[in-house]
C-alpha cells in the first residue's frame, strides 16, 4: 500500500463523511435538547431536492444552499411543533417526516432527474494549506462546505460545552423540569434546536446533490440520514467526535472499494458492520447508570416535556 493510496482513502473519507457530519451535527443538537429526530433522512432528501432545484433555476449554488437550509428548517419546524407543542410521540413524528420527505422530494424532483446542475460546489484552492504534503490533499483540497465543517465542529463544541446557551441546552435535555423552574425557556430552546437540526440536515442533503455527486436522483441520500442517527450515539453526543466519526462511517465504503481496486479482498459486509458494532457498544455503555454521566447522553431524550406534569 503506497502513501498515495492511503492519502486517497483518507481524502475520500472526508468527502464521503461530510454530508453525514452535517446531518449528525443537526441530530446531535436536537438530541442535546431532548428531542429525538428520526426524520433526518427525509429532511436531507428535501434539502437535496430544494437545493438542486433552486441551484438549477438561479444557476447559483449559494442560493441553492440557502433554499436547502430553509427547506430543512421548515421540516424541523414541523417536527418541533408536533413534538414540543403537541407533545406527540417523537419516534412516530420522526418516522412520519422521513416517509413524508422521501415522497415529497421524489414528487418535487420529477422534472429534475437527468438534468445537470449548472453551478455545483467545486473544489476551492486555498493558497498555502492545499499545498502541504499529505495533509493538504486529505483535508484541504475540497469544496467550501467541507472546509466550513472544520470550523463548525469546534464552534458547536464550544457552544454546547463552554457557553451559557450550551449549558441551558444540555439542562433542557437532561432535566427540563429543573431547567424550567430556573427560568430557562424549555420550549424555545427545543424549538430552536430542532429547527437548527433541520437546517443542518438540509445542508447535508444539499451537499450530496450539489457538491458530492452532483445530480438529483430520487432517494439519493440512500440511508445516510440513518447513519447520522447512529453516528450521534457513536460520537457520544460530542460535536468533535461527530467530525472524525463521520469520516469513519463515510470512509468505510471508500476503503472497501479501494481495497478491491488493488486486489485485496475483504468482505464488504464485515467492513460495513464495524462502525455499528461500536455504536452498539456505546449504547450498552449508555445504559450503565454511572456511565451516563461520563458519556453525557441527554437523560430526557425523547421524553416530551409537559409543565403540568412536573
Amino acid at each position: 500500500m503506497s502513501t498515495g493510496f492511503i492519502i486517497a482513502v483518507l481524502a475520500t473519507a472526508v468527502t464521503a463523511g461530510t454530508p453525514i457530519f452535517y446531518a449528525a451535527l443537526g441530530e446531535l443538537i436536537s438530541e442535546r435538547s431532548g428531542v429525538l429526530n428520526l426524520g433526518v433522512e427525509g429532511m436531507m432528501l428535501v434539502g437535496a431536492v430544494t437545493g438542486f432545484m433552486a441551484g438549477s433555476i438561479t444557476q447559483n449554488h449559494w442560493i441553492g444552499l440557502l433554499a436547502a437550509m430553509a427547506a430543512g428548517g421548515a421540516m424541523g419546524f414541523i417536527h418541533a411543533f408536533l413534538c414540543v407543542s403537541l407533545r406527540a410521540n417523537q419516534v412516530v413524528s420522526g418516522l412520519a417526516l422521513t416517509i413524508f420527505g422521501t415522497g415529497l422530494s421524489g414528487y418535487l424532483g420529477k422534472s429534475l432527474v437527468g438534468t445537470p446542475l449548472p453551478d455545483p460546489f467545486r473544489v476551492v484552492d486555498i493558497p498555502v494549506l492545499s499545498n502541504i504534503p499529505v495533509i493538504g490533499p486529505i483535508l484541504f483540497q475540497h469544496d467550501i462546505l467541507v472546509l466550513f465543517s472544520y470550523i463548525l465542529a469546534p464552534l458547536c463544541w464550544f457552544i454546547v460545552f463552554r457557553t451559557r446557551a450550551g449549558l441551558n441546552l444540555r439542562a433542557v435535555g437532561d432535566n427540563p423540569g429543573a431547567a424550567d423552574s430556573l427560568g430557562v425557556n424549555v420550549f424555545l430552546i427545543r424549538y430552536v434546536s430542532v429547527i437548527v437540526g433541520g437546517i443542518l440536515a438540509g445542508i447535508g442533503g444539499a451537499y450530496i446533490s450539489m457538491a458530492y455527486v452532483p445530480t438529483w436522483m430520487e432517494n439519493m441520500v440512500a440511508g445516510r440520514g440513518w447513519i447520522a442517527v447512529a453516528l450521534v450515539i457513536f460520537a457520544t453526543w460530542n460535536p468533535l467526535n461527530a467530525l472524525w466519526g463521520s469520516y469513519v462511517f463515510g470512509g468505510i465504503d471508500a476503503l472497501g472499494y479501494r481495497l478491491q481496486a488493488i486486489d485485496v479482498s475483504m468482505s464488504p459486509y464485515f467492513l460495513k458492520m464495524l462502525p455499528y458494532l461500536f455504536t452498539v457498544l456505546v449504547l450498552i455503555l449508555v445504559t450503565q447508570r454511572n456511565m451516563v454521566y461520563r458519556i453525557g447522553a441527554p437523560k430526557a431524550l425523547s421524553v416530551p416535556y409537559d409543565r403540568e406534569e412536573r
Partner: protein
Amino acid sequence: MRKLNVKLVSLLAIMLLVSIFAAGCGGGGEEATDEGNEEFKVGFVYVGSPGDGGFTYAHDQGRKYLEEQVPGVKCEVIENVADADAAQALTQLAESGCKIIFSTSFGFMDPTIEVAEKYPDIVFMHCSGYRTAENVGTYFGRMYQARYLSGIVAGEMTESNLIGYVAAYPIPEVIRGIDAFTLGVRSVNPDATVKVVWTHTWFDPAAEKEAANALLDEGADIIAQHQDTSGPQKAAEEAGKYSIGYNSDMSPLAPKAVLTSSVWNWGEYYVNAVKSVQEGTWESGRYWGSMAEGIVGLAPYSDVVPDEVKAKVEEAKEKILSGEWDVFTGPIKDQDGNVKVAEGAKLTDEEIENINWFVEGVQGTITE
C-alpha cells in the same frame, strides 16, 4: 348455543356483505371498461420510481411508448413497491380490471406466481425471473449483446489498457454483462484488462461514484457500470476520463465522458406483448429478447468516437443481428486461462443465464 348462533349469523352477514361488495366492484369495473370505448387496461408494478433515471426509468419510457403506439391502452402504475408488498400491488391491479400486468422486478417472482393463480384470466409478465405458469410468462433482454458492442468501443478508446467496471452484486446477470463487455474489449484490444469493483448496492449514486474514483485512481481511463444511477459516469467526467453508460442514454449527465451507453428499449416489447393478448395469441413462455428484436441496443455515440471504431462495432453488430454469431461463442478462456468454451462451441442459453465465472481479461473476484 344462543351465543354461537349470534356469531354464526353475524359471520354469515359479513360474508354476504363482502360478496355483494365484491360483486358490485366487479360489475362496476366491467361497466367502466364498456363505457371507456374498448379501453384496454395494462398494469405495471415498479420496484423503484421513474425518477431513478435508471432501470425503472427505462421501463417507464417503454410504458409511455406503449400508450402512444397502441390506441385504447390505459396504463395503471404502482411505483416504489417493495418485494414484500408485491402481492398486494399485483392484486390491486388485477382487481381494477387490468388484462395484462407487467411485474418489473426480479424480487416480484414468487408473488407474481401466487397472485396469478387466483386470476387465471389475466396475463402476468414477470421481468428477469425464471418461474412461469399457465398465465405467467417471463421476459428479459440479451443485454450482453449490447455490452459486447460497448466493450469494443472501450477497448478501442482506452490508452492505459485498464478499464474500470463498477458493478452492483456478484449475480449471474451482472457477471454475464462483465464477461460480454470484456470479450468485446479483448476482441479489439487483447492487452486490455477490465477491473471490477463490487459496490453491493443498486442505487447509491454517491457510493457508486466513489467506487469509480477508486478505479480511476488505479489507472483506469474508461469506466463502465452495472448500476442504476449515473454516479460512476460523474466520476469519469470529473476526472476527465471516458465512460460507458447503462440502462438509458447517460450522455446528458456526463456529456464529455459518455462514449455510448448500452440501453434497454422495453417499448417495442411491451407493444408486442399487449397486442398478442388483445389478439388472443399470447402464450406462456420465457422471452429473452435479442438485439435483433430491438429490446437492447447502443445509445448514440459521442463525437469523440472515431468512424473506424464505429465501423468495427457495426461489423460485430451485423454478425449478432443476423444470428450467424453470438457473444458466448468459443474459444473462451476463464480468468485462470482454462478453456471454458472450445473453438466452435457455444454456451447454451441456460449456461449463459447461470454464468458464474469471469472470462480471461477480467481482474476481480466473484465473492459471496
